[in-house]
């Protein structure tokens, strides 16, 4: 089980230019101006290193909000 707030805090740290308060569980993260390929790579590494979950780029692509992303990650745990 992934703690939403823990994930959200870590997810916010992947961004350098974006105001953290703009990133919530409902944020459509791919619409953020700063979203780029390095952040995608960072997200994959974050999931593997901090949450021990291998996430595919397709799962990121198919998730709209941070909440979707967490659900998608949890599906990998089942």
């Amino acid at each position, binding site marked *: 089980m992934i703690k939403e707030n823990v994930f959200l805090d870590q997810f916010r740290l992947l961004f350098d230019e974006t105001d953290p308060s703009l990133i919530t569980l409902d944020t459509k993260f791919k619409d953020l101006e700063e979203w780029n*390929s*390095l952040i*995608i*790579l*960072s997200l*994959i*590494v*974050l999931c*593997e*290193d901090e949450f021990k979950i*291998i996430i*595919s*780029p*397709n799962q990121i692509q198919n998730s709209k909000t941070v909440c979707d992303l967490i659900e998608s990650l949890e599906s990998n745990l089942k």
Partner: protein
Amino acid sequence: MINENFSNKKILVTGATSGIGLGISRMLNEYKAQLTISGRNQTKLNKISNEFELSNLNFNKGILADVCNLEDISNLVQEIDTLDGLVLNAGIIDYTPAKLITEKKVIDLFYTNVFSNFFLVQKLLHSKKIKKGASIVIISSIAAKVGVPGTSIYAASKGALNSYAKVLASELSLQNIRVNVVSPGVVKTDLIENTNVTSDFQMSNLSTKYPLGLGEIIDIVYLVQFLLSENSKWMTGSNIDIDGGYLLNN
């Protein structure tokens, strides 16, 4: 004229159980080299050693060795005869943005890709197990020469290896031992294809960056074959990019 007679040559290949190392070992085995291979996966090593024994009477042996373990390196050196050729291929890949690298990742990567080679060569030299006139080939990467995001520690490890090779070539030239580096671009290997990040995230766009397409293991094998042979007897300290033209545009 290419001299492909390796049957009188004693050669060690590290990281020989997969990818480029396996390709090089297969080539040397086909040319009946007195080959010793090392790897850290017992099952793979046994399977390949059995295969090689059946097809090459000159095959020496497979030695289980984790190059990150000094004791394993010492055992490896003890078990081999004086070498005519050495291929330093053992290595791992990592894709981690600089912001997220960890001490463990840096240590693991540098130990496997860099330090292990320092210690193996040191012990071989100290035991006088590299013949005069031998050829050492080091497998590096073009990653050391470009700035691909996410490759900071991997690229740094290969950069360190490149510098090491240059100095080693200089020191060993007195004994007529040649040291050359092969810097491949991306070739289709298990190591690359099994890396989650590369397989999906980068591979799709990657081939467009290579004017001649992604490389195959055999492309690297032919170059290593040349460097191990007498045909390259006037080459040392070289670092050869073999990248399907990648560096033309980067």
